[in-house]
């Protein structure tokens, strides 16, 4: 009965998806409930801030510089048609602060830190380190998951800010230093047009949401990974794919809420 099989397969996938959403939600609340101890021992979060945040800096800075340079180049070519080259600084800054900073930094964070978190926790599970911790009466959500979760949430806005700052510098290098746009109008128009609450705060909120979602997905996938080489590899792939799609979908939703009619 091929139709029955198809219906069964669809039903199975729907049930599986609903189960996973429930499991992620439960995991999220457990992480929040067991976060108290990691705030009392803040050095645990600082250690994770180094491996998730500081170790992601190089890729963020290099990517930010090139994205900013491309924006400077493309922006100049477009604005020149309307005689508005002097608005290049505004265009580069708004593109980065509102959209590209939070989104591209989150995508890079998912591929660099998110995949590393999933692989690390998946391997800890495969090598019985998590079972060992449970047998020592240490809650692995409190000891392993919560510090990594908060490190991810805290790092993301800083990484996005760094991406935007370096991107603006990249736009300056191409627009002002290489092409010769007036430096005064580049900076002054940027300063006049970029609003702290409207643009920068919304960018920070976006990056906080992306940081929460990416870190949660990465930690859940690691914790839920089958304890085999294939299981860990599959979980790492799912982290990058699911996080990337979630970032792009959430970006649309947040942009619609924040900037509609602005």
């Amino acid at each position, binding site marked *: 009965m091929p139709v029955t099989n198809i219906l069964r397969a669809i039903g199975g996938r729907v049930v599986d998806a609903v189960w996973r959403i429930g499991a992620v939600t439960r995991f999220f609340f457990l992480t929040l409930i067991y976060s108290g101890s990691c705030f009392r021992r803040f050095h645990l979060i600082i250690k994770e801030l180094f491996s998730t945040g500081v170790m992601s800096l190089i890729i963020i800075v290099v990517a930010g510089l090139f994205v900013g340079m491309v924006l400077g180049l493309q922006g100049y070519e477009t604005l020149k048609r309307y005689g508005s080259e002097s608005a290049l600084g505004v265009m580069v800054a708004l593109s980065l602060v509102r959209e590209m900073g939070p989104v591209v930094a989150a995508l890079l964070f998912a591929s660099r830190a998110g995949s590393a978190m999933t692989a*690390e926790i998946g391997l*800890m599970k495969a*090598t*019985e*380190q998590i*079972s060992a911790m*449970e047998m*020592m*009466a*240490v809650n692995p959500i409190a000891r392993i998951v919560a510090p990594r979760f908060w490190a991810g949430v805290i790092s993301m806005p800083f990484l996005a800010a760094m991406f935007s700052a370096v991107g603006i510098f990249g736009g300056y290098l191409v627009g002002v230093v290489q092409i010769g746009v007036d430096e005064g109008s580049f900076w002054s128009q940027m300063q006049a047009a970029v609003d702290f609450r409207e643009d920068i705060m919304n960018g920070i909120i976006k990056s906080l949401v992306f940081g929460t979602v990416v870190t949660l997905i990465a930690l859940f996938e690691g914790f839920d990974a089958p304890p085999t080489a294939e299981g860990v590899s599959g979980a790492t792939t799912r982290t990058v794919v699911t996080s990337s799609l979630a970032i792009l979908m959430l970006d649309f939703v947040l942009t619609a809420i924040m900037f509609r009619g602005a």
Partner: protein
Amino acid sequence: MSLNPLVEIRDLNFTYDKRPVLQGINMTFPRGKLIAIMGLSGCGKTTLLRHIGGALKPTKGYVRMDGQVIHELDQDGLYAMRRKMGMLFQFGALFTDMSVYDNVAFQMREHTELPEEIIHDLVIMKLHAVGLRGAQHMMPSELSGGMARRVALARTVALDPMLIMYDEPFAGLDPISLTVIGDLIRRLNDALGATSIIVTHDIQESLKIVDYVYFMANGVIVAEGTPDELRASDKDFVRQFVHGEMDGPVPFHYPGADYRQDLNLRA
């Protein structure tokens, strides 16, 4: 075996996915003794250990430790009970992002308010007991299999547990490491006054150090006794297991189709 055993298992049954894994298990673990649970791979030994540690709930029956039924404890009660236990995992399960020193200090830092100076002295004493004081700054990736097992042993006894469980402590060790680990298990048990349960299929090394043995097959206890009783046993299964005979109640060939049929030969 004892009027006041540390661990009692009564009529323990566990079914996984409609398949019975443990059936009607009754065991007693007296205080201060070192007891082995032996059997072939997949006979339910590790599942039994997981029931004692509270990682699995029985379908029927119970495990009682120090007067409390394990599966009736809530999470706080279970964690309180686990602080009285130590478990050595098959390949050590050392935390790979921590040094040897930090691995051994882990439980002390998590469960006690001891100052770092005292933790330092305790860690050094535990590492000295397993002969690895000199390896305190090494990372787990730099250790051999036998050294990793010894560090894990030091970590297991870090808080002087009442009950120490060993899951296949001899797996994959060279003969020297095997003897060292066996000797350490016996000496630590006696020095700490603990009760130890070893799950293993390494018959020769285990019979040298344990006080009592349970033999399991297909989820049931098929024989039990002291090492001398088992060596002298005339039960087919025990004889095959103790002497490592190829054929017996445990067949050499896994059940399958007719040999000639598999080779496509006509009768």
